[in-house]
């Protein structure tokens, strides 16, 4: 391959996934685009630090998460039209017959940042609770509690009975 390095190819192929991850963190497409752009530039410059190719995806997701935190954590921008964001990201979604899925997306977007971020990291990013704890500078117990509560809120949206008993 004369023109594009394998690293660039992989970066480009992972970009939609990084953008999706950033979008759920930032709740704003433009912010997510900026975060991913900066993250990819950082990854490009730091590619020599990546010794295990199989670690590329979590490495990139971590860079995206840190970049989002670095640039925007102290400047949470309210998304003015969450429902619009949902429907406009994919025209098909606007006419989706799966109303429950749409409602779930809206509910995830409305989760407090402290709950949404670990949930996105876990479900979409594939991070373990210990990795999330390390990344967010929390105890693992705190992460477990946040994840439990996040699912609890979403559980109500989906009409699933809440867990009884020892919920934290």
């Amino acid at each position, binding site marked *: 391959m004369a023109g594009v390095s394998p690293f660039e190819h992989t970066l480009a192929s992972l970009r939609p996934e990084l953008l999706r991850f950033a979008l759920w963190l930032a709740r704003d497409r433009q912010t997510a685009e900026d975060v991913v752009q900066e993250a990819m530039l950082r990854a490009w410059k730091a590619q020599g630090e990546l010794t295990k190719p199989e670690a590329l995806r979590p490495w990139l997701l971590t860079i995206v998460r840190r970049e989002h935190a670095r640039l925007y954590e102290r400047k949470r921008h309210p998304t003015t039209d969450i429902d619009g964001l949902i429907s406009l990201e994919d025209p098909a979604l606007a006419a989706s017959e799966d109303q429950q899925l749409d409602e779930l997306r809206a509910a*995830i977007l409305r989760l407090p940042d402290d709950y949404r971020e670990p949930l996105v990291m876990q479900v979409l990013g594939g991070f373990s609770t210990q990795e999330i704890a390390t990344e967010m500078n929390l105890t693992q117990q705190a992460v477990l509690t946040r994840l439990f509560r996040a699912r609890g809120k979403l559980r109500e949206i989906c009409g699933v009975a809440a867990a009884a008993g020892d919920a934290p």
Partner: protein
Amino acid sequence: MQLQIGADPQASNDALEAHLLACARCTAFRRETRALDGQIRRALELPLEPLRSASNVVELRRPAAESAQIATAPRREGRPRAWALAASVALAVTIGLVFWSTQSQPALATAVVEHMALEPDSWNQHAPVPQSALDLVLRRSGVRLDRATAGEVVYAYSCWFRGRYVPHLVVQTSGGPVTVLVLRDEAVTREQRFEESGYTGLLLPVQGGALAVLAREQSAIDAAALNEAAQRVLQAVDFDAPS
């Protein structure tokens, strides 16, 4: 135990599995939570349309004051950070220039052609790109485009290409779509024609960078038409816009 299941329904360990064997309530809770997780995953895997059809609309709906706030947010953290950012960008550009100027032009043509494979749908667009979306793409790379001169832009996306974001445009011509990559800071010393992997194209030197203009070989665009399209874009592009 429910905290563990509710927080990490995919987790499994000996103690948990032993507990589940004896606890119907936790077993049911895990089953429900795993089902919920499947729905959450589906919800999170939001399909993302290219910038032209999504974010521009979102941006248009955002109040102007908020747009300005977001646009300037990283700069309001103080002068040292601004200098650090500027130094970082300057370093990146310098490294990029030194590195890529050593690469041959055929390598650039090959990279351009290889990039086409990443966005096959770009050739199938027909609706004009909203001006706000085009502005967004161009602004990322510090490029201006006189749309009236360039022709009808039906696709615009910021693409990661050789270590930087570049505007990837598709311009509709009478003979069919023509792809334009606006390659700020790429060094091309002379006009170069290439045919590769089903594409015919031109690399054109421009002050401040280069243009890559391509058509598909099976299209009705011959060399003269491609050259005409390239010259129109060449006149329309301005690299002087601050990035």
